């Protein structure tokens, strides 16, 4: 028998109660937490193969070491999220090795190939910023004690990734020419992906169990606005064009198109004048992007090779 009803637990966590173990949860709380941790772990995991491709083209040994450190961090963060899931009865083996690639729950942004070093640093600047925005809010507000503790490490390291991204975006833009053009091309396809990252606007979203159970503190729109308020001034400062601007009067960043919109996966171009419904955007996410199968296979390959090697002994 659960110790509390949903309503009792919602009231307790809104008043600051911290859940420490499974027998203090209700089924609905546990379900919402499992969903949140799965998205978190899958996002961290899939960022690793995404960053690994262009990291091999790093412009110097030092920068390659930094990129590899970032990839190792991301794998560590995935491991921590899966470790927490394991304590909730979800098999780590199932999460890592038994799901179909399209069943992973990371955002569509990590289903894309990053074509060069510039795109890697833009991903660090824009996608890791999205990660910090989401996880920073969870860290401050979550009612689940083990996750709150785990996020101390994650927060420290994600800030390093973000700094790496922003410093390199500035550096490439200052050097101009082809380097700057590549940053622009990367931002042009990644910025609208970041806008979508936070999901449905509040006025369209059905009731959120994650908010009721205090598994996070901010709504989708609040999180998106926090991300925009950081990313838009950065792009304006380094002279990168984006379909958004800083509104002085409102004191916040404003998106200049009606999202979500259609995306041409092959050309990596957003069709900003072709609005679609959120259902159509979800369908695109669920179909998964061009790198999905490749990335999932690449994080599993080592384990399968090891199994094969051991079976021959």
């Amino acid at each position, binding site marked *: 028998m659960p110790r509390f009803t949903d309503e009792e637990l919602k009231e307790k966590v809104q008043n600051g109660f911290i859940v420490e173990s*499974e027998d203090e949860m209700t089924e609905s709380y546990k379900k919402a937490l499992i969903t949140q941790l799965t998205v978190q772990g899958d996002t961290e995991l899939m960022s690793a193969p995404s960053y690994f491709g262009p990291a091999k083209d790093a412009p110097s040994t030092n920068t390659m070491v930094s990129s590899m450190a970032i990839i190792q961090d991301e794998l560590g963060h995935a491991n*921590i999220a899966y*470790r927490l899931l*394991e*304590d909730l009865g*979800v098999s*780590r083996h*199932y999460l890592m090795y038994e799901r179909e690639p399209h069943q992973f729950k990371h955002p569509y942004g990590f289903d894309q190939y990053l074509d060069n070093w510039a795109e890697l640093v833009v991903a660090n600047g824009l996608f890791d910023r999205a990660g910090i925005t989401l996880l920073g809010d969870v860290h401050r507000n979550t009612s689940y004690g083990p996750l709150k503790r785990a996020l101390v490490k994650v927060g420290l390291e994600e800030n390093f990734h973000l700094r790496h991204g922003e410093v390199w975006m500035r550096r490439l833009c200052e050097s101009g020419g082809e380097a700057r053009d590549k940053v622009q091309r990367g931002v042009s396809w990644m910025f609208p992906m970041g806008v979508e990252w936070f999901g449905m606007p509040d006025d369209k979203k059905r009731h959120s169990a994650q908010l009721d159970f205090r598994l996070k503190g901010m709504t989708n729109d609040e999180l998106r606005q926090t991300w925009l308020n950081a990313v838009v001034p950065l792009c304006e400062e380094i002279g990168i064009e984006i379909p958004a601007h800083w509104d002085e009067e409102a004191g916040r960043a404003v998106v200049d198109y009606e999202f979500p919109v259609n995306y041409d996966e092959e050309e990596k171009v957003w069709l900003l004048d072709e609005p679609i419904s959120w259902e159509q955007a979800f369908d695109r996410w669920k179909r998964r992007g061009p790198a999905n199968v490749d990335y999932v296979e690449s994080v599993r390959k080592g384990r399968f090779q090891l199994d094969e090697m051991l079976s021959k002994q």
Partner: protein
Amino acid sequence: MAERVYIVLARKNREDPLHHIGSVHASDPELARVYAWKTYDEERWFEMVVAPRDAFHPVNRAEAPFDIRPETPEPTA
């Protein structure tokens, strides 16, 4: 070999208390040491130790909120 959960404890400085910073899953203490050191590398730790979770005994409550279940239950998808 059967895998166990190991609790990871660490401190940054000599005078600090050991903090419970996380856990790892490993088939033996040697691997647990490696996983802990490689996973929780966010600080320059003065000291880090690992112990199997089932080595902890609750003292003041039968069902401690700190998760010290004797065995990891058979996981399900």
